């Protein structure tokens, strides 16, 4: 079994969801969160397949169909910049530039210290406070350069910034 999660932890997650096929999205999302690297390793997915009585191809289909999953490791925090039209016209492109400079990476990449991955996302349903970014489960809006720097520094310190 590869790093981070062992098979017992995976099985515990599957069983906590009643080993039900319908719960596959919840199970995989929880595994991804527990991984610390925001991804689902092939071995873990195979374990899920075995325990839910599904062929691995079905689990792979699910993992690669839904945008929230990744099958390759990502940063501890995934920063997603909304690029749907309400945020786009609220100058989300400027937010991307600021984040790229702050993190020293281009969008689509992960920082060397594996702390942050910077991605685009479609609408997160916070168009009234656009431009917005989502970090993990938290959505931050009405962003300015100063607010972004403060936010990143707080996450660097390991404590998510409270609104």
């Amino acid at each position, binding site marked *: 079994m590869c790093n981070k999660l062992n098979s017992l932890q995976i099985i515990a997650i599957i069983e906590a969801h009643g080993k039900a096929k319908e719960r596959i999205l919840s199970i995989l*999302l929880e595994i991804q969160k527990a991984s610390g690297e925001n991804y689902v390793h092939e071995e873990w997915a195979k374990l899920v397949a075995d325990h839910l009585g599904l062929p691995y191809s079905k689990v792979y289909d699910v993992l690669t169909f839904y945008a929230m999953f990744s099958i390759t490791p990502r940063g501890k925090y995934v920063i997603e910049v909304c690029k749907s039209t309400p945020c786009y016209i609220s100058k989300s492109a400027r937010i991307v530039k600021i984040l790229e400079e702050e993190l020293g990476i281009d969008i689509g990449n992960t920082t060397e210290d594996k702390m942050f991955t910077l991605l685009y996302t479609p609408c997160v349903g916070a*168009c009234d406070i656009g431009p917005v970014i989502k970090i993990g489960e938290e959505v931050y809006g009405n962003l300015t350069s100063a607010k972004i720097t403060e936010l990143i520094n707080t996450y660097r310190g390991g404590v998510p910034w409270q609104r």
Partner: protein
Amino acid sequence: MAKIVDLVLHHSDSITPDSVEDYVKAGGFEGLRKAFTMKPAAIIAEVKAAKLLGRGGAAYPAGSKWAHLLEIAEFPKYIVCNADEGEPGTFKDKLLLSQVPLQVIEGMIIAGYVFNSHDGYIYIRGEYAAIQRTFQQALDHAIEQGYLGANILGTDFCFTIHIMTGAGAYVCGENSALLNSIEGKAGRPRTKPPHLAEVGLFKKPTLVNNVETFANIPVITKIGGEKYLSYGTEESGGTKLVCLSGHVAKRGVYEIPFGITLRNIIYDPEIGGGMAAEKKLKFFHLGGQSGPCGIPKQLDTPYCYKALRNAKLSVGSGAIVVMDESVCVIDYLKSVTEFFIHECCGKCTPCRQGNQQLYIILNKFTNGTGAQDDFIKMQELIDVLTKTSFCGAGQSATVALNSCLAYFKDEFEAHIHGICPAGHCF
């Protein structure tokens, strides 16, 4: 006519979202109590009288959908709430789910009672993880207080609601794709017919309605269909939650009665409050990415299903994205098309390839290499996507483009000559 009403959002700012006590104090569950004294067919008659059209975007008459399912003899039947709000510019379901979850729950219980169903599912998008937790607390509290679970309010009726999570897929907002996703599969849409009322979740008869539709049900049973209808217009019953975003002064969710004008919605100080900056309104985009765009001369169109349809506009999800003159229409359409490329499930070729080809053509205009024959190519692609895509996502992906080609042909032409009127592209 009042420009803002407080019918569906009646409880929203005065109660603790998951508190049954607060909800009951504010008049909650009265709709359910009344429903329990009525026959299922009588409840459906009220929904029909209310002229409640599906609030997710498709505007299918809820009463007809319910009547169809009632006629089906097979059991079990499932009640499904579509809370996969992913339409850009739409955030009203989020408001309902996070502020009045018990009203959505009450609507689902009434539906469960009508169809003698014992299991309801609410499919909440994965991006709303915190809301899923609030909603679960609301469910737990409703069970503790006897409004959900076994023998609801001392009757024989038992009903349970399960929360299912999405994981990031716009297409799951399409009802058949949503059911596939609840079943633990990739959320690709199904071939229809059969209708979901016949072969739905786990191949059983199923009702799928949007969050806002369910939130309207307790109101309708409580005040009656006729009274509910009277809040809106003759054709469009009741109220609509509209979501204002973009370059408007007061972005947010507002409950408006059907029939006030788009001008009221965007400019009234109580609602949109006009433009955010000292710039003129250039165009607006209604109903989500799959809806049409409109221009200032349409501002006096009443906001209701019929008048908007006649003006080649639509209510859709309730999204109203407002653009000022700094926005280049073609650049905007590129953003719309990019969305459809990202969200295409890949099942059918017209949607998968068509959107990509459209993006390439739009890009030609913004980089100064567009030509006259690109108009013909775009029109061909629009036809192919509209007529041959497998589901609604592809069929409506070019609605915005089509409307903008009608209103902003000169802006496309200008780009061919190296001029971007908004000063964005060159």
